[in-house]
């Protein structure tokens, strides 16, 4: 697989699907978007179900980590993009360990500072993007927003 986009449900997945639709327009790119958590009941294939989690509940994060390793080994994406939140961060960590290119896009909801997941992701991701110009720095880049 070329590009895997992973996000939590809700606002994260709306932003991820905007990015997904641009990649999808190019039929030469093999791209997929997976949503962690409650929307997994819409995903038919059992291989690609991943639970939602947050950093306040370590056990759910552990399950998410196990699922991420399994899913990564099945799909082997060359590039992984996440718009958040914790499941995306965990999946990116796994992907980075296996040598994929990892991109974190912080949610447009984070106006005052980067999300917790984003601050963790900046330690291992290849690229970190914010959607707010005033939050950009040398490491955290701004290349536009979803709206």
């Amino acid at each position, binding site marked *: 697989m070329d590009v895997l986009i992973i996000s939590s449900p809700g606002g994260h997945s709306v932003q991820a699907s905007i990015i997904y*639709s641009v990649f999808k327009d190019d039929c030469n790119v093999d791209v997929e978007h997976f949503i962690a958590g409650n929307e997994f009941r819409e995903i038919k294939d059992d291989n690609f179900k991943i639970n939602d989690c947050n950093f306040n509940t370590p056990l759910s994060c552990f399950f998410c980590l196990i699922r991420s390793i399994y899913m990564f080994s099945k799909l082997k994406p060359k590039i992984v993009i996440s718009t958040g939140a914790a499941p995306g961060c965990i999946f990116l960590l796994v992907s980075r360990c296996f040598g994929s290119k990892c991109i974190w896009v912080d949610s447009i909801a984070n106006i005052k500072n980067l999300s917790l997941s984003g601050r963790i992701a900046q330690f291992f991701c290849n690229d970190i993007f914010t959607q707010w110009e005033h939050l950009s720095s040398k490491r955290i880049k701004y290349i536009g927003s979803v709206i």
Partner: protein
Amino acid sequence: MIFITLGTQLSFDRLIDFYLDSFNASDFISDHDVVIQGELSDRHVKIIEMLPHIKHFNYMTSDEYAEIFSCSDLIISHLGMGTVITAVYSNKPIICVPRTVKYGEHRNDHQLDAASYFNGKFSNVRVVSDFDVFLIEIAELLKFDQTKNRQVFKSELAANLYSSSIELLRK
């Protein structure tokens, strides 16, 4: 039809109270059927059972959500980014009430922080925290013509991500 959406995570009693108060206060709102998506308190469930023009769903699939979203004349919602982005892309009139920590409606005040940015930036998006303003804006937005001034949105971020990824894949 008016679509009230509360998001997937938490309940938002104040928004339902806003709607119910406006329903009692003015005719132009009570003329419209309503669909509510999201979790409600027991008090609201009891009230809504007595109002036949309101349909309530705790959970919707994304297809059901998209269908109701596109059919509605007005969206009333929390200032959830997913809902606002969807409304901006489809030129749908939307009135948003930011969730606050003060009333225990969210874990942080990012919706309040976003309020000043989104208010006035798009003609179809209004952000209000005050009930009187809520009433005025509803009256205005129900007159909003969805087919007029329709812009095609293209995300600069998505386009940039795409071109840099293609470069990388070709290497």
